[in-house]
């Protein structure tokens, strides 16, 4: 008999000493290629209160749109100073921030490129399994043809696109529930 999936359980409120290490919120070194950006946001619950015990993880391609993984066989350069994974906990007001680069476009269906995006996992007390979403970039021409963005109801698509807060700082709030609830994906 084939083995069967191990069920998910909540991360609970006490994960920080085990999972959060200072520096994991920065995906870059001084030598990483690409345009430096900060991503800042808050995780908000159904009362619009900050979620103070959430963990956010990012997974993204490098500046050329290549993932640092053996299943990405694109003939694009790897970046030895960029691996594409970051992790941060929210603070007492539900805030998080990351330092990274804007990823290049990676292939999607067929020959079409996906718009540049960052894959996001959200864990928290009260989430019995992970939530996943994507961060897209404003003023990005490929957004118009991105298959994933286009699979989302038009009135909810804006929840997936970061806002420019100031130069090189993007704002991306994650609303778990209620008005302007972020679009989450079944991956």
């Amino acid at each position, binding site marked *: 008999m084939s*083995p*069967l*999936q*191990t*069920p*998910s*359980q*909540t*991360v*609970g*409120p*006490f*994960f920080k*000493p*085990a*999972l959060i290490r200072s520096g994991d919120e920065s995906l870059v070194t001084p030598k990483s290629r690409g345009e430096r950006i900060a991503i800042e946001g808050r995780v908000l*619950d159904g009362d619009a*209160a900050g*979620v103070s*015990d959430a963990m956010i993880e990012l*997974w993204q*391609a490098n500046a050329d749109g290549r*993932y*640092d*993984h053996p*299943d*990405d*066989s*694109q003939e694009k350069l790897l970046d030895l100073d960029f691996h594409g*994974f970051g992790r941060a906990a929210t603070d007492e007001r539900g805030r998080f921030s990351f330092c990274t680069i804007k990823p290049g476009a*990676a*292939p*999607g*269906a067929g020959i079409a490129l*996906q718009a540049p*995006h960052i*894959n996001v*996992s959200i864990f*928290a*007390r*009260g*989430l*019995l*399994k*992970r*939530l*996943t979403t*994507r961060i897209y970039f404003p003023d990005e021409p490929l957004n118009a043809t991105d*298959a*994933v963005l286009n*699979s989302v109801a038009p009135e*909810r698509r804006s929840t997936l696109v970061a806002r420019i807060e100031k130069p090189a700082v993007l704002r991306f709030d994650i609303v*778990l*529930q209620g008005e302007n*609830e972020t*679009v*989450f*994906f*079944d*991956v």
Partner: protein
Amino acid sequence: MNPPLGYRRETPGAHPPYDRPSYTSTHKRAPRHAPVRLEHTLSEITGPRFAHETLAPGDDDMTHFNGGEAMGERIIVTGRVLDEDGRTIPNTMIEIWQANAAGRYAHVEDRHEAPLDPHFAGVGRVITDQRGAYRFMTVKPGAYPWRNHHNAWRPNHIHFSLFGPSFATRLITQMYFPGDPLLPLDPIYNSVPDRSARERLIATFDIEVTIPEYALGYRFDFVLRGRDSTPTLS
């Protein structure tokens, strides 16, 4: 280039829903919209990898900390990380955390009036070997009250975080102990709809895993999602 294979989806009944009325913390945190199904692309079939360099000496022994030995019943936990096709998953990181033997976490937010143990941090980390196997030593965590409802107690459990080979295979879960009388009362354990799936979260006591005169032993395998049989979009 052959299109890479995606990963299988969640097995129905094997994972909790987001909305679980008996678990109070879900009330304001469970999304109201159903998640949008996303076909797997390179973004989902790739994922972070962690090398043995991320381990520190002693990460697989939680029974010694800060120059002394933790209080409690020493246990070995060992097993394998597999996928649904029974393939072992080597070189994958497992992060571990738990309460001490008295049921208290070394965490500023844990205010349960049970003693902290200066020699137990409750944090570990291992990477599976070439056969997908892992092993670590710890003390059996205590049960603790958690105020979800009147007289609510969490059963003894250890938390685990795994990545597997891709973004799609990421898993955070909890391992429980056989015969725990709190299991039938626990909203988190019982959030898994399928009974046989829930029971997969319970470790097996194994006398062969014990160290005579020193530690008891439990086996626990993790099964992550397997590859899909049809190519993904790429």
